Each structure stands twice: as structure tokens, then as C-alpha cells.
């Protein structure tokens, strides 16, 4: 387990910034109101090409475990591919959802198709953030604000308004259904 290098940090942050706004800063520097001990500082650690987000205290404790024996620490954000790109996992949803810049709320009749791995059609969209450009990362939520996953917009908000009800508005990237569908491979290295 090791900290990230500079290019890795840049790749990770640019991926996270696809979905979140400037409030991403809170991930690195917690608000001053919380106890600002050195141990409670949150850090990113890389282990077997996966990136984990955890407190420094836990990361330090984890150094006592041999590398082959260590399976996971803190929250897994995603993994670096062999080409050096970063792929976000569904486990990162809890971290990006509170800081999301653009959101899409799906109606109850659209929840199941999304959780089974489908894209979101216009008919299933309950509401969405205004002024959202094309191919922009969005967080998908239930109508009661429970995050379900994330994806990328197929069209801008203005174009979506003219779209027929069966037209795709958001391409799915990850959904919480993966916890069941990808159960065997999600946490294995």
C-alpha cells in the first residue's frame, strides 16, 4: 500500500471532478469544525492498482498487514487500468453523491430498469438539474434523494426536452445493483 504519485492524483481528481463540483475539496480537507487531528486526516492509498480512501490512522494501522494478505482498507474508489486511466467503482458512490454537481432523479417505475443495468430513458426521469451539458457525469437518485448510481448524460437538458419518451437521456456507468450482480468480482483483486 502506498500513497498516490502526482499524475495518479491528477487522474483520480479529474475523474472525480466529472461528477462533483468545487466542494470536492471537503474530501481532502475536512471542514475546520471537525476535530483536526493529524490522525483523522483523510488520505488516498493505492493497493494492487485499487485506490482506497481512508483516514490516516487506519492507513497507518494497515501497514502492519502483509501486502498479499491485505484485501481492502477504507472505501474503494476505483482502480487504475493498465493504460493508466482510472475507473470509478460503485463503492465510490457514497463519496461522490453528497458533492454531486448535476443530478438526475428517476421515477419509481424507472428504478428497477436502472438497477438491472439499463440506461435511463426520458420517460423515467422525474426531474433533473438544469443547464446540464452533453456527456457530463451525473449522479442518479431516487425521488426520495437516495443515490442509486451514476452515469453520463446522452444529451444536454435543452435537447432532452425535445426527445421522445423512449429516447436515452443518461448512459449508465455504475448502479447499486452491481453489489449483487458483480458480487464475485467486486472485491477480488
Amino acid at each position: 500500500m502506498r500513497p498516490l504519485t502526482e499524475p495518479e492524483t491528477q487522474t483520480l481528481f479529474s475523474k472525480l471532478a466529472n461528477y462533483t463540483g468545487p466542494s470536492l475539496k471537503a474530501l481532502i480537507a475536512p471542514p475546520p469544525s471537525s476535530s483536526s487531528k493529524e490522525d483523522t486526516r483523510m488520505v488516498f492509498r493505492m493497493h494492487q492498482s485499487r485506490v482506497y480512501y481512508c483516514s490516516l490512522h487506519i492507513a497507518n494501522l494497515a501497514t502492519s498487514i502483509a501486502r498479499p494478505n491485505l484485501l481492502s482498507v477504507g472505501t474503494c474508489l476505483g482502480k487504475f487500468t493498465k493504460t493508466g486511466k482510472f475507473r470509478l467503482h460503485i463503492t465510490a458512490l457514497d463519496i461522490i453523491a453528497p458533492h454531486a454537481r448535476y443530478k438526475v432523479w428517476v421515477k419509481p417505475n424507472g428504478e428497477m430498469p436502472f438497477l438491472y443495468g439499463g440506461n435511463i430513458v426520458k420517460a423515467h426521469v422525474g426531474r433533473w438539474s438544469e443547464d446540464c451539458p452533453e456527456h457530463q457525469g451525473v449522479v442518479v437518485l431516487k425521488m426520495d434523494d437516495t443515490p442509486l448510481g451514476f452515469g453520463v448524460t446522452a444529451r444536454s437538458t435543452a435537447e432532452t426536452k425535445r426527445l421522445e419518451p423512449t429516447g436515452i437521456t443518461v448512459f449508465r456507468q455504475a448502479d447499486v445493483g452491481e453489489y449483487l450482480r458483480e458480487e464475485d468480482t467486486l472485491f477480488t483483486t
Partner: protein
Amino acid sequence: MAPTRTVKSSMKGAKSSSKPSALGAKKKPKAPPPKQQKTKPAQGPAKKKRRVYTDKELGIPKLNMITPVGVDLPKGKKKGKVFVDDQESMMTILAIVNANKEGQIESKMMKSRQMEEIREARRKEAEARQEQRKSKLEETKDSMRKKRKRKPDVAVDTESSDSVPKESKGGKAGRKRVSFA
């Protein structure tokens, strides 16, 4: 060192041979030899100090060699990865990334807005053209209708009102009739 010395001795020898031997023998023991000897040993050590540098020491690349990227590490640089673990440097990276993303989103929005404007303008133009075409069609339709209405009027005006029924009667009369009694 050695070759210079030999040259001297030869010169001396030559001089001595040209001049009478008695004179040469008198001069030799006096001044010149120690002076010359002093100067020449002084030149010798200076040449010795000149150091020959190897290509490696000077950092001269070897000719006709291709060194793949990453194989030749820069001198005086630490080996291995440079980690980013302090909050400040992470913040600066994040600020750069955020600024980049902001710019990208802004440019996307601008582009989409422009495209929307262009599309709107095109749609309006097309609508106006359609309207024009429609109005032209209506016009021609109206003119056709008027013409059709006018023609019977003209016929009525030119011919006498009686002639028309007559014609019609004549037409009727002219028709062949078959009756079965």
C-alpha cells in the same frame, strides 16, 4: 620528457662538431646547461597534469546508439516514484483539475447554446419559407377559383340568357332516345 632531452643533446653535439673542440669544452661547464635544464623540467610536469577525460565522465552520448525512453535516467535525480501525500500539494492539484473542468463545462455550455441559437434561427427560416410557400399556394388556389367562377359568368354575359337553356334543350333533343313500347 624524453624526446626533448635527446634533441638537446644532438644540438649540442652538432654545435661542438662545427666549432673547435677546445672552445666548446671551455663554454660547456659554465652557464647554459643548468638554465636549460631548469626550464625544460618545468614544462614537463605541466604536460603530465593534463587529464584525459572519458566520454562517460563528460556525458557525451555515444554515436549511433538509440537509448529507449526511461532506460537512461537523468543524473543526480532520485530513483523511484514521487508521492503526493501532503494536503497542500493535493489541494493545488485539485484546484488545477477543478479549473480545467470548469473551463471544459463552460465551453461545452457555450457551444451548446450557440448550436441552439443556430438551430432556432434555421427553424425560423424554414418556418418562414414554409409559410411563404403556403401563401403562394393559397394565392394560386384563389386565382384558380376566381377564374373558374368568372368563366361561367363570362359565358352568361356574352351569350343571351335564352341561348343557354336552348342549347341544353337542343342537347337533350339531340340525344338519341330508345323507347320500348
